[in-house]
């Protein structure tokens, strides 16, 4: 006989884009030991469990409607830090903010970071995040020396590239569907300053945009492009590129100071006056087709070739620069569609996608490009090519048309050998997943799932959507 779960644990959880909500029984274990009890409890009650970190996925990755969500943020101890070797051992709820604040004063920086510092290590590895340096440093998973994992069966395992290698490659990027990271050992990257040398310049069209991403990859440590997706005709795909490089030893005379946490703290006020917490309200009136077109045009026209030094945090964590920026998209929130296209066909594919979105009157309000390299993780999203992440505002009137357009995008991308990222796209179907991952890969993941989680205790709305009932 089932015993009903406590209703006061029921919480309406959201995705990062505020475009999807699902109720779940929210459990927040304070330590790793409690996780096993929750698995047993879920099994007794016939419920599934989803792992959640900071909830920074744009889709349904950390949602589990009607099930249990395990919020691992309280499991956030840094277990060991060795400034001599740059090895950090931490629990899954530790955020990138905790990591950089621990390691930077000693002259290290996380090898790969997301656009926000509030993501947790467990979440980052569950999705195998990439940064603006993917072409050079790969994904975060490539810097994991070892991790310990608790399986839903109660067993614990240690995995590294050499030990339990198949589980190592499947659990990183495995959407938290095989087990729970309980301890993660990461190699940090040595830095000699708290500053980066940044260069910014405009690119007039998509061809130049991609050409420059290609040409700069040998000299850049980080590369990222902003794309004005409202520009058409000759200016299609125009935008601004940012390149950043680490400073070499001795290049920053004040390195000791710039590497301090206080120096890196993002300012709380804009121009020293306006509290940033109200900025998203100021952005909201511009979050419509006309407003974005004007803002983008102005941003492009005033863009000049610039070279300057900037703290790591200011360059990397743009999403944190305006607190709650995603609320500016209004009640329907936003979705992000990111496609990873091989370098040979990216120009043609994105020209087609951008043209399609403009013809249908559904322009993306923000486009971001990056250069990528392949990796050997089982559910990898990376290609030897580029990614374009497109933000779309969700409104009741646009939903059906957007859904139809994203299906077209999937078809176009798949024909070009494109891939997708499970932390972002919200409409990926099982057919699309099988097409880009390959049947063999999906079968292998399913077989590992069966081995690690024979009772299918770990399931998220994302997993059910993409891998369905099998």
């Amino acid at each position, binding site marked *: 006989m089932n015993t009903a779960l406590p209703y006061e644990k*029921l919480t309406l959880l959201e995705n990062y884009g505020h*475009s999807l909500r699902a109720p779940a029984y929210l459990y927040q274990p304070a330590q790793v030991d409690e996780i096993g009890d929750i698995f047993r409890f879920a099994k007794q009650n016939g419920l599934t469990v989803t792992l959640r970190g900071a909830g920074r996925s744009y889709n349904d990755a950390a949602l589990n409607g009607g099930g249990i969500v395990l919020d691992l943020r309280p499991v956030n101890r840094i277990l060991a830090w060795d400034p001599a070797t740059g090895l950090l051992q931490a629990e899954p709820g530790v955020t990138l903010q905790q990591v950089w604040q621990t390691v930077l004063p000693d002259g290290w920086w996380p090898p790969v970071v997301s656009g926000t510092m509030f993501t947790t290590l467990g979440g980052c590895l569950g999705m195998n995040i990439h940064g603006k340096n993917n072409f050079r440093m790969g994904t975060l998973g490539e810097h994991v020396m070892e991790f310990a994992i608790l399986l839903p069966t109660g067993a614990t395992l240690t995995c590294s590239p050499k030990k339990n290698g198949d589980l190592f490659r499947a659990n990183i990027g495995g959407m938290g569907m095989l087990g729970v990271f309980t301890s993660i050992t990461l190699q940090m990257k040595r830095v000699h300053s708290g500053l980066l040398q940044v260069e910014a310049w405009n690119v007039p069209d998509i061809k130049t945009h991609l050409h420059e991403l290609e040409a700069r990859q040998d000299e850049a440590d980080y590369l990222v492009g902003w794309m004005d997706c409202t520009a058409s005709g000759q200016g299609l795909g125009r935008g601004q590129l940012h390149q950043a490089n680490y400073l070499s030893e001795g290049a920053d005379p004040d390195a000791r100071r710039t590497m301090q946490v206080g120096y890196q703290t993002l300012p709380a006020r804009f121009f020293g006056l306006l509290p940033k917490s109200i900025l998203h309200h100021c952005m909201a009136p511009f979050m419509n087709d006309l407003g974005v077109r004007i803002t983008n045009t102005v941003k492009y026209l005033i863009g000049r070739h610039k070279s300057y030094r900037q703290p790591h945090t200011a360059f990397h964590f743009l999403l944190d620069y305006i607190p709650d920026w995603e609320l500016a998209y209004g009640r329907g929130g936003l979705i992000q569609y990111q496609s990873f296209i091989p370098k040979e066909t990216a120009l043609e594919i994105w020209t087609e996608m951008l043209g399609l979105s403009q013809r249908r009157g559904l322009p993306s309000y923000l486009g971001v490009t990056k250069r990528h390299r392949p990796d050997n993780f089982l559910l990898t999203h990376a290609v030897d090519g580029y990614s374009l992440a497109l933000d779309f505002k969700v409104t009741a009137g646009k939903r059906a048309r957007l859904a139809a357009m994203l299906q077209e995008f999937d078809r176009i991308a798949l024909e070009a050998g494109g891939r997708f990222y499970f932390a972002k796209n919200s409409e990926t179907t099982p057919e699309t997943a099988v097409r880009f991952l390959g049947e063999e890969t999906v079968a292998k993941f399913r077989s590992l799932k069966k081995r690690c989680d024979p009772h299918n205790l770990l399931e998220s709305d994302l997993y059910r959507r993409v891998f369905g009932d099998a």
Partner: protein
Amino acid sequence: MSDTKPLPPRATPLQPRRRAIIVGASIGIGAAMARRLALEGYTLALLARQEEMLRGLCAEINTQFNETRAIAYAHDVTDYDSVPALLQRILSDLGGLDLFIYNAGISLPVGLKKFDFEKDHRTIETNLLGALAWLNPVAAMFQSLRSGQIVGLSSVAGERGRVGNPAYNASKAALSCYLEALRNRLSRYGVNVLTVKPGFVDTAMIKDTKGTFWVIPADQAAKDICRAIRKRRQELYTPARWRWVMFIVRNIPSVIFRRLIF
């Protein structure tokens, strides 16, 4: 309990899905509500004792939309103890809950000169205690989530105690009162409670009843209820003219009312 495979698809940002439970869904207003809500895009958990009819209704809806949009759960509302676990299971099967409709109800008239505790007991069990068994956990759930809508099918019959069907009148009066109290408790949490008071609706319940008038088809009542749900109204008379009729009936002095034989 019915099998639930395959489960309905979950919502995505571009394909949002509202989810509803209808208790008492196999025939009458419940079945008509199910068809209408499915058309509005709801994913449904349909509950009733009559499993076969329920399965037929689910099959009809799922075939119409070419996806699992309705799931059948065989359930007797007087099996109070099974409710919390069943609610938990439905929440997990649907992936959430936005709307709860309690439509189970029976009418067991006794003769004008007869008294029958057994019939009264059954009436109160289905119409009132079954409702309380569901409304308590559903209210607790919606209160925690700070969202949701509850619909209770009461009746104009709950507005006065009449000679023909005392237990039915009492059960609906108590249900209306309970729903009002729930509304007062839950509105501060963003939860809406709608009390529906139909007049005579063309269902099995009134087929042996004499002296009916203004009888409307079940689908007409369902249409009115769906509109009231969309508008998040608190009270609905269907058809609307019953509001004024009941205003008069409520105000008939007892000295006259007790001499009437309806």
